[in-house]
C-alpha cells in the first residue's frame, strides 16, 4: 500500500473502520444518520467503503452535494440518482415525470429540470421519493456528502426549507434512510440558520455519530503497511509504525502524510525522524497542514463575546498536563477581566467540544481532544515554557 494523503483510497484498503461501519449499518437499520468529523478524518473513505461493500439488502446511493447551488439542483441530483436506480430495474420515476408534464405542458426530457419546476421543487422531490419507495427492491440509503456546503450555497431560506422537507420525507417514508456528512460541522450550518430566524430541529430524528481517529492498533497497522508499501527502511518496523501513529493521534490522513514525507526524505527512518517531521509540520511557515485553521476557526464561528472565552480556555488546557474540571477552568478564566461570565463559559465549552477541540472525560474533566492540536496550540500561541 502506498502513501496517498488526500487522495482516494480503494475501499478494500481502508484500514480500521470495520467496527465503525458495522455500527453504522446497525444504526441505519433503525434511523437516519448524521456522520460528522473534522476535515480529513476519513468520512468519505468510510461512506465510500460502505457504498462498495453494502449488504445485499441495502442500496447505497452516494452523492457529493458541495456543487449544488439551489433546491432545484438538489432535487435534480436526487431524481437522476433515483432514475438511474429505477432504470436498472427497467422502471421509471413515473409520478415525477407526470408531475413535470403537468407543470410544463409537455413531456420532460433530458437531465436538467426546467426552470418552471423551481417553485415546485418540494413537490417534485416528494414525488421522486414516492417513485423510489413504490419501486424499490432494497432499502435505499442516500449518502449525501458535504451537506453543509450545499446549505451554504443555496441561501438561508432555501436551506431551512430543504432541511425541513427532508425531515418531513423521513417521517412520511420511514423505510428511507439518509446519511448527512460534511466537512463543516452541521451544527454551525444550523446555528447560522437560527440566527436568520430558524427555530426547528431538522435533524433531531437522526442519529449523530462521529468518525474518530483509528484505534492505536489499527493506526499502527496502517503505518506499518504504508512503510512496507513504500519500501522505507527502519531499524524496527513495528516501533516506527507505532511512533508514527502516536505522533499524529492515530489520524489516517496525517499517517499517510508522514509516510509520504519519509519516502521523499529517503534513508533509514527512526523515531527521531518521525518526531522531527511532525514538529516540522507544526511549525511549518508554509502551514502545509493548515494548523492555523484551528485558530482561524475561533474568529469565524465564535462571536466577540465568546471568542475570548474560547481562546483563554484553550490556552489554559494547552499548558496543563492533566485534565481540568469546569470549576478549575473557570477559576483560571476569572483572572481575566474579559471572561467573568459562568454561563458564557459553559456555552463555549460545549461549542469547543462540538468543534473537536476538547473532550470531557467520564470524571467530568476536560482536555484537548488531540494531543497534536494541543502541541500546535502551545507552540503557536507562544505558551511553550
Amino acid at each position, binding site marked *: 500500500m*502506498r*502513501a496517498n494523503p488526500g487522495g482516494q483510497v*480503494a475501499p478494500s*484498503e481502508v484500514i480500521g473502520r470495520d467496527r465503525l461501519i458495522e455500527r453504522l449499518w446497525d444504526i441505519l437499520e433503525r434511523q437516519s444518520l448524521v456522520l460528522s468529523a473534522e476535515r480529513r478524518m476519513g468520512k468519505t473513505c468510510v461512506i465510500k467503503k460502505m457504498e462498495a461493500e453494502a449488504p445485499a439488502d441495502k442500496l447505497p446511493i452516494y452523492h*457529493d452535494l458541495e*456543487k449544488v447551488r439551489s433546491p432545484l439542483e438538489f432535487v435534480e441530483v436526487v431524481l437522476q440518482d433515483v432514475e438511474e436506480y429505477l432504470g436498472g430495474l427497467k422502471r421509471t420515476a413515473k409520478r415525477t415525470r407526470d408531475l413535470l408534464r403537468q407543470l410544463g405542458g409537455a413531456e420532460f426530457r433530458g437531465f*436538467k429540470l426546467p426552470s418552471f419546476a423551481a417553485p415546485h421543487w418540494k413537490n417534485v422531490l416528494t414525488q421522486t421519493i414516492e417513485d423510489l419507495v413504490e419501486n424499490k427492491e432494497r432499502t435505499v440509503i442516500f449518502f449525501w456528502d458535504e451537506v453543509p*456546503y450545499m446549505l451554504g450555497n443555496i441561501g438561508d431560506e432555501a436551506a431551512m426549507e430543504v432541511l425541513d422537507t427532508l425531515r418531513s420525507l423521513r417521517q412520511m417514508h420511514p423505510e428511507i434512510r439518509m446519511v448527512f456528512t460534511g466537512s463543516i460541522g452541521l451544527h454551525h450550518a444550523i446555528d447560522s440558520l437560527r440566527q436568520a430566524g430558524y427555530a426547528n430541529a431538522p435533524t433531531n430524528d437522526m442519529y449523530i455519530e462521529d468518525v474518530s481517529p483509528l484505534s492505536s492498533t489499527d493506526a499502527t497497522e496502517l503505518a506499518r503497511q504504508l512503510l512496507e508499501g513504500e519500501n522505507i527502511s527502519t531499524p524496527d518496523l513495528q516501533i516506527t509504525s507505532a511512533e508514527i501513529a502516536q505522533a499524529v493521534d492515530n489520524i489516517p490522513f496525517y499517517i499517510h502524510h508522514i509516510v509520504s514525507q519519509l519516502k*521523499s526524505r529517503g534513508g533509514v527512518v527512526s523515531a527521531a525522524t518521525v518526531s522531527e517531521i511532525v514538529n516540522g509540520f507544526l511549525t511549518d511557515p*508554509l502551514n502545509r497542514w493548515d494548523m492555523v485553521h484551528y485558530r482561524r476557526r475561533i474568529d469565524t464561528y465564535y462571536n466577540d463575546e465568546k471568542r475570548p472565552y474560547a481562546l483563554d480556555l484553550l490556552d489554559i488546557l494547552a499548558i496543563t498536563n492533566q485534565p481540568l474540571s469546569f470549576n478549575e477552568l473557570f477559576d483560571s478564566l476569572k483572572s481575566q477581566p474579559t471572561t467573568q461570565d459562568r454561563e458564557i463559559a459553559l456555552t463555549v465549552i460545549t461549542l469547543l467540544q462540538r468543534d473537536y477541540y476538547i473532550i470531557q472525560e467520564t470524571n467530568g474533566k476536560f482536555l484537548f481532544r488531540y494531543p497534536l492540536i494541543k502541541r500546535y496550540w502551545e507552540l503557536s500561541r507562544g505558551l511553550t515554557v
Partner: protein
Amino acid sequence: MTSTFISRFTPSLMKQETLETIFVQRETLAQHLVEVISESALTANKHFRLLVGMRGIGKTHLIALIYHRVSKMEDLRDKLLIAWLAEEEWGVTSFLEFLRRIFWALEKEYPEEYNAQLNQKVKELEAIYQSSPDEAEHTAAALLKDFVGKRTLLLLVENLDDLFDGLGDIGQKQLRAYIHNYSFLTILATAQSLFDGVRLQDYPFYGTFNSHNLEKLKLDEAVDLLTKIANLEGNSELESFIQTPTGRNRIKAVHHLACGNHRIYVIFAEFLTRKKLDELIEQFNRTVDELTPYYQGRMAWLSQEERKIVKFLCDRQGAIPIQEIAESCLMEYKTASSNLKDLERKGYVIYEAIGDNYFYELQDPLMRLCLEVKQKRTEPICLCVDFLRKWYSRNELEEQLKSPLNNISEFEIVLAALKKSEKNEPEDQRVPALWKEYETHIKKADFDYALKQGNKLLEIRGHASDYLAVAFTKLFLGRYNEALECCDEAIKIEPNNSIVWWGRGKVFYEQEDYDKALESFDEAYNFDPRNLIILFDWKCCYLKNKEKKGENDDLESLDREIEGNPNNIEVWSTRAWRLSALGKYKEALESYDKVISLDPFDESAWSNRGWVLCGLERYDDALASYNKALELDLNYGWAWCQKGWVLERLEKWNKALEAYDKAIELDEKYSWIFFHRAQALLMLNHWDEGSVALDDALERFAHSSEPNTGDTAGIIRNLFNDIHHTQMWRSRISTLIEIYNKHQVVAELGQGIVRSIPALMSEMVSDKAAQTWLEVWQELTSEYKEFQIPLRLLNTAVKYRVKKGDRRVLLELAIEERQLLEPLLGAIEPINMKVK
C-alpha cells in the same frame, strides 16, 4: 557539435530523448510519480499530486517526462487515458470550460477514438449551451464519464493555482464533487506555490493534493546539468572543461547568482563554449539578455501591488523592513505584509526576522541584476560577475597555498617540464624564438597557434622535447590519439627521459585509461624519483583508477615483496612514495626512514621525507630533512623550493628569501616562488625591494590566460597587522594599487581586501584601527570601479564590528554580497596574524 532542440520556456516541445538526457536531480521523484500514476490506473486508489516550485524550476520538464514515460507503459495502455492540458489554459472560467479543455486534450491525444465517439457530441454542446448552460455542463460531465468508461483519466494540469482562480469557488466544488462521485480521475498538477485553494481548510480542495516541493539545483547538480547539455550538443571540449577545477569555479560563480533555477542554466548553456565559460562576463551578459522574457513573465504573474513591491526591492539592495516597504510603496502595513507573505510563498522573496521586525528581499539576485540591465545599468552585473569569477578562482588558489606543489598551474608544469627536457643549447637560432612564441601562446591558452610553433620546431629539428611540445598542445585540444603518437615518437628518441614518459601518462590519464597512465607514470618515476609533479599526477591517477574500479587503495602486493626481500630499497622507496601520494604520511615516513637506513646518501629520499613531514605539519623536522638533502646535493632545485616554503611556515623570512633566490638561480622558475619571494621581502619590511620583486613577478605571470597575481590577501593582511601608522598604510597601499594597476590586475587587490577581512574582526583589533583602515582604502580607491564591491563589503564589515554584531547592518547588503561576507565575519584569526 550537434544541434539538439532544447526549449528554454516550453520543455513540453522537447523530444523524450532530450528530456531524459538533460534530466538531473529528480529521478527518484520521477520514478515515484510514475508508480503512483500506475497504481491509480490499475487500482481504485487515485492519487492527486502537486509539484510546487517557482517558475523555471523544472516543473514542466518533469511533467513532460512523466507524460512520455507513462504513455509508453504497455500495461497501462487499456487502463489509462491522458489529458495533458496546455501550460497556460487561459479563460477557464467554469467547470464546463474546464471539461471542454479536457476534451481538446483528449482529441489531440486520441484522435481516432475521439472522432468516433466524442467529436460530434462535444460540438453539440455549444448549441445546448445556448438554451441551457447547466444542461451543457451536465451533458459534458456525462460525456467524459462515458468516454473514459472503466479506465482512469490522468489529468496533467499546469498552473493549478491559476486554473482554480478561474474556476472560482463553485467551479472547484463541482470538480471535487465530480471526482468524488465518479472516482475515475487522477491528477498530476503544478503550481508556483502551495496556494490557498489546496492549503486552507476553508477551501474545497484542502488537503487533497500531496505536494512535492521541487528543490533548487545544488552546485553538483548544476554542473551535472551543464555537462549533460554539453554532451548532448556534442561539445566535448566544454564538457571536459566543466569537469576541471577552473570550469567548476566558473559555474560556482554562476551558481552564486542563479539560485539553482533550472531555466537559468538552460539559457546559460545555450551559447556556451569553453572560452565563454572561462571568460564568463560576455556569456553572462548574453544570458541576462535572454532572461528578460523570463523575468517579465514572472512579473506578469503578480498583482499590481505585488509588482510594485518587487520593483521596489529590485531598486533597493539588501533586506528591507516591512514598515519601510509599506511606506515606500504607499501601502498600508497590513497590505504590504499580506502581499509579502504571498510573494514569499511564490518564491519571489525571502525574509529574515530580527526581533519583531521582518526584513524582506528578493530571493533571486539575478532578477534584480536583470532589471538593472533593463535600466541601462550594465556595470553592476559586470562588476559582480567579475568579482565572483575571481572570488571562486581565488578559493581554489587559497587551497593551493596550503601546499607548494599545488601552487603550480597545469601550463606552468608543462612549460617547466619541456624546459627540463630541453637539455642542450639549440644550434638553430630560430629555435629560441619559436619556443618563446610557443610559451606565450600556451599561457594564453591559444593552443592552435602554439601547435603551429611546435610543428615548426619538429620541421627544424625534431627533438624529443619538440614532439612533447606538440603532444601537449594536442592534449589540450582533446586530440588524444595524435598526442599519444607524438609521445611515442619522443620516447623512441629519448627512452630514459622521465618527462616524456610523464607526458605519455598525462595523455592516458585524460582518456581515463588509468592503468596505462600508471604504467607510464611508474616509468617516469623510475627515471626521476625526485620529481614531485610525477608523484602528484601518479596519486591522482591511482585514486581515480581505484574509484573507477571500486577497489580499496591497498598496497598488499608491495608488502608481500617486502616480506620476501625486506632490504629491497626500490620496493621500500616505491611504497614510501605511494603512501605519501595517498596522504598516508605517518606510514610513508616510516618507509622513508627505512629507505634512508638502507641508503643514507639518497638525496631524493631525504627531500621526499621532508615533504611527508610537511604533510604532518612537523616543519622543524621537515627543514632538517631538506637540509640533509641539500647537503648531499647543493644544486637540488626542488629541495630549495620546498625549504623556502617550510621556512615561511616557521616565519624565518630571511632564510626563506635565501632559499627562493637559490631555487630561482637553479632555474626553478615557478610563479609561486617569485611571488613568495616578493612577499618575504615585504614581510621583512624591505618595502622598496619587495615592491620591485612584486612588480617583476606580475610582469612575468599576470599577463597569461590564467594570470597569477600572488597572495594579495596575505600581502594586505600583513600590511594591516605589521604597520601601525596611517600615513604608512596610505603610502604602501598607494604603491600596491600602482603596481597592480600597472599590470591591469587591480581587481585582485579588491579580492585581497575582502579575504583579509577576518584580520579586522579579531578582538585584539580596535574599532578605531578598523575604521582608519577602511578610510584609507576608501580615500585611495574612490576612482576605481573595481573596488566598489570590495569596499562595500569592507565598509559593512567595519560597521558590523563597530555596532557589536548588529545583524541589521548585514541586511543592508544585497544577498549575493552578504553571502560572501558572512563566512568571513566569524573567521578565526589566521596564522601569522599578530596582535594589534
